């Protein structure tokens, strides 16, 4: 089992209970949807799995190891094996496509020759071949999200977290982006995607974890389960 959570909960300082008693497990290579209305706890769960925040209760195991007791170098190693894509893309607005994607390699101190080789390859994979020198603010929403995906997968992560990646996109662009995620998943990357896009969830026959008011209310394959 790749990811396991045991009774995890998250209560913020203002007293809001974001998550409560979440027990789930995700295997290597799975494609899992996290569904629920706004405020259900989807983004909070992803932030806990990504170790951006700590749960206030429970345990999280990734690859059999507790992520709550990781040293700083181990957290760094975990992050290098995961990728994250956000609804609002979170690109560096003043940079080009190359600047944004290569940043992920520069931050992990890859050589310039490796960066020059891998960036074009990953851009081709996400359908942005030859667009290295375009300023990201001149791209469409779908293209910007593809840049974000490229940045997330360029280090060949084991797990890809996507927090509402199609939230700001039109249906056609959303569908194209989902195809990209399926393609990445077919090569072995585990994908956990938070979404409230019912159409996409219904169309794909994937495992769906449904959250409501911070609780896991359903864990089943196929269809919107709320």
């Amino acid at each position, binding site marked *: 089992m790749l990811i396991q959570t045991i009774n995890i909960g998250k209560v913020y300082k203002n007293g809001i209970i974001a998550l409560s008693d979440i027990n789930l497990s995700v295997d290597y290579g799975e494609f899992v949807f996290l569904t629920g209305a706004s405020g259900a706890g989807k983004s909070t769960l992803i932030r806990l799995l990504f170790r951006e925040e700590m749960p206030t209760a429970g345990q999280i195991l990734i690859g059999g190891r507790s992520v709550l007791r990781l040293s700083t170098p181990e*957290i760094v190693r975990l992050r290098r094996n995961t990728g994250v894509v956000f609804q609002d893309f979170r690109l560096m607005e003043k940079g080009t496509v190359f600047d944004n994607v290569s940043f992920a390699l520069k931050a992990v101190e890859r050589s310039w020759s490796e960066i020059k080789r891998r960036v074009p390859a990953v851009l081709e994979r996400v359908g942005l071949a030859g667009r290295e020198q375009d300023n990201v603010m001149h791209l469409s929403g779908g293209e910007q999200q593809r840049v974000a995906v490229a*940045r997330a997968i360029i*280090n060949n992560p084991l797990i890809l977290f996507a927090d509402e990646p199609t939230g700001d996109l039109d249906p056609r662009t959303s569908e194209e982006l989902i195809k990209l995620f399926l393609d990445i998943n077919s090569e072995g990357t585990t994908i956990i995607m938070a979404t409230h896009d019912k159409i996409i969830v219904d169309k794909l026959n994937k495992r769906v974890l449904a959250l409501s008011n911070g609780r896991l209310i359903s864990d089943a394959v196929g269809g919107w389960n709320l």
Partner: protein
Amino acid sequence: MRNNGWMTFAAVLTITIALFLASLFWLLLKNIDANAVEVEDNVRVVAYLDYSVASGQRDEIRQQLEWIDGVAAVEFVSKEEGILDLQKRYHAEDLVETLGGVNPLPDLFSITARSTDDVAGIAAAAAEVKGVAEVKYGADTVEKLFALTDTLRKLGLAIMGLLAVAGVTLIAMATRLTIQTRKKEIMIMKWVGATNSFIRWPFFLEGLLLGLAGAAIALTLVLTLYSGAADYISASLPFVKVLTLAEIWRPAASFTLASGLTLGAVGSSIPLTRFLDV
């Protein structure tokens, strides 16, 4: 640094002022120390004769002084020779007229000790010789100089300390503002697995550069000022030892630049520890 122009300017300005004052104090203390060492190394004891001592008594006094343990040589300096020496040293040919036409100096014996260890003993013994009115030697002056140095050092440290705190605070604020401005980049670096040191080093470098910039400006200003002041003091007060620019610029540069780098490093480390952690 570009993004926080005013904050950066304020940080560099404060560091410049702090290090300018610190370097000035440091130069002053170095010069005082040099004078103290020179006086301390002086093995001369001066025995001033009582005004009532007649010329016939001088030989007896000289003999008694020569018999004191540790004395290498005794030389008589008449009051006429003394006033001539002063006129020459201070370029004041009309010194006697200025003093009302009367030479106020007494006759004296200049006693050379074999070593500085003997100086205090010789001074004490010479003071006991009949006809000797007063004895002076370097240690007295050295003690006063050291007391002055100590007071100046404490005052200097207090002022430098306050300015250093101000400089460090401003560098910390400038670094924090830079962190805030680059928050998105920092978050992306954390998500993709950058190490703490990779995230922190540009900000640390920025702090060092701020400290170094302030130090370089301060050093230029203080050495320019010192060069002019040293020439003036040497000409006006020839009996005071003044370290030349050639003698002092390297240690002054080391002190100022090292201080600037230290302030920059400390200033930038504060926000890095608080706000930047994977």
